[in-house]
């Protein structure tokens, strides 16, 4: 047998893994490079330029869609995180009680249904409400986003809570702290990294959504992803590359933050 026999070695696995990582990143890198293309075609390289970033910045449709995305994303992220925190407090650190399994299933339900089905369901439901109330604002999108963000926000918060024992809270109660005070001064500070992680996840998930938004939105309510989908279907210019690059940068920044917040163990 070979002298340096490694028990962890499997033939070809490293090569496949290397291919995977290259294949995962290559298209994204090409996309980013062409965002800085001076030519107006996405196949010829015409030298370095920022003109497509500038043109995206001056495109009112892009700016509108971006602002709408942020608006929906932040409202949905805040609400879904608050609701998910409450739900996580209600479903962890307890002996099983009637309805606990139901709650788990209900909270994770949006993850189990293909987005297209949820999209269609909301299209039908909201079109009824629109006729009934006459309201056709952004509220429908916010509601839909809040709902499908809850299971994502719930994940890190629940994980964090499960690693917190009740000792400190019991000690606080022994010292005559009211339940609210205990929550405010003990539970919340300890849980905070989980809540932050949940908030960021929810925001990214909302920002990324295409399918449900596409079905729920009324005319003139494009978010950045649905606007981009429309443009890509019509034919592509490097402007889409520029928008994608900016979007990517934002996602990477949030994910990096999330990674550090959720990895921190204290």
């Amino acid at each position, binding site marked *: 047998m070979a002298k340096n026999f490694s*028990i*962890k070695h499997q*033939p070809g*696995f490293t090569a496949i*893994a290397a*291919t*995977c*990582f290259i294949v*995962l*990143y*290559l*298209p*994204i890198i*090409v*996309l980013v490079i062409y965002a800085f293309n001076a030519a107006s075609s996405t*196949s010829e390289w015409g030298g370095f330029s920022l003109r497509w970033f500038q043109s995206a910045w001056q495109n009112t449709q892009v700016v509108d869609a971006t602002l709408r995305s942020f608006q929906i994303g932040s409202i949905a992220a805040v609400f879904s995180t608050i*609701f*998910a925190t*409450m*739900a996580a*407090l*209600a479903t962890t650190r*307890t002996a099983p*009680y009637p309805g606990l399994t139901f*709650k788990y299933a*209900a*909270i994770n*339900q*949006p993850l*189990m*249904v*293909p987005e*297209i*089905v*949820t999209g*269609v*369901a909301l*299209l*039908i*439901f909201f079109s009824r409400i629109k006729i009934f109330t006459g309201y056709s604002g952004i509220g429908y999108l916010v*509601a*839909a986003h809040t*709902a*499908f963000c809850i299971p994502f926000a*719930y994940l890190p918060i629940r994980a964090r809570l499960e690693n917190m024992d009740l000792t400190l809270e019991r000690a606080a109660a022994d010292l005559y702290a009211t339940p609210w005070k205990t929550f405010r001064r003990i539970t919340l500070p300890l849980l905070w990294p989980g809540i932050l992680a949940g908030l960021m996840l929810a925001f990214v998930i909302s920002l990324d959504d*295409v*399918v449900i938004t596409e*079905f729920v939105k009324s005319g003139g309510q494009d978010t950045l*992803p649905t606007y*981009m*989908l429309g443009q*890509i*279907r019509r034919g592509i210019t490097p402007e889409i590359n520029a928008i*994608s690059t900016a979007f*990517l940068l934002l*996602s990477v920044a*949030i*994910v990096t933050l*999330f990674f550090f917040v959720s*990895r921190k163990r204290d």
Partner: protein
Amino acid sequence: MATAEEVAKAAERRDVRDRWLLSAPALLVIFLAATGPLLIVLVYSFLTPGSYGDVKWQFSPEAWIAVFLERDIFDDTLSVAAAHVTIFLRSIKLSVVTTIATLALGFPTAYFMATRSEKTRDLWLFLITIPFWTNLLIRTFAVLQIIRNEGIINTILLKLGIISAPIQILYTDTAILIGMAYVYLPLMVLPIYASMEKLDFRLVEAGYDLYATRFQVLRRIIFPMVKPGVIAGSILVFIPALGAYVTPSVLGGGKNMMLSNLIELQFGQGRNWPLGSALSIAVMIIVMVALLAYVRNAGKSGVRHG
């Protein structure tokens, strides 16, 4: 006077009640804007289509018949709706192939990551996580730029003289397949990695001590131990692949429809909301069957997997 037991019971009841109140907002929002509307879809699938979209409140099983059968407009005979069957089969086939392809690539990748040193593992995990949280539309768009006729693959092959005309990949089933495998790969790697990370390599060593070959160790020791991760990954890839909307719309062009495009059509130009609803429920049923298979399988292997 209440006994101690009664007091404890009352406290417990209060605790359960508080816990219901705490979870009420989340449950309410999910019921109103996710679960509840699914029931409406079920109702709509049994109604009559309205002339300008929406429905007439009149019971009709036509939508469900139309999922797989076609009614001849002259003599009312039923025949198999070839177009629908083709789209169903194509969607299932593409989703299955995507799942297999991501498994074939993702399993070795997860193994590679799990066998790195503790410190570098986090870095590899981070590298897989970034595409995972990057907008799916952007990643699909990135694939589009690579595989189209003027894209990097065709340009290089042309310049090298290997081909004389660009290979048409875009707007074919192959394009959808490449796109789905690309966007869903992290969904396969992450759960397999989670199982793989806990793998006890002393068992692998024991296998080699007993003269097992590398392949035997892989098949008889490693694979059975990470099977829950493999099943979880397959489910996580299969469900979104079956309902994929963005990837086939961008890479498949108008002709190569998948189920989601067919459903969308019924709510747009098709103006047949009941048929669209019935198709949506049909997708749900396929997903349910896959999930049930997963639950039974996970139960059988005796390992709980989150």
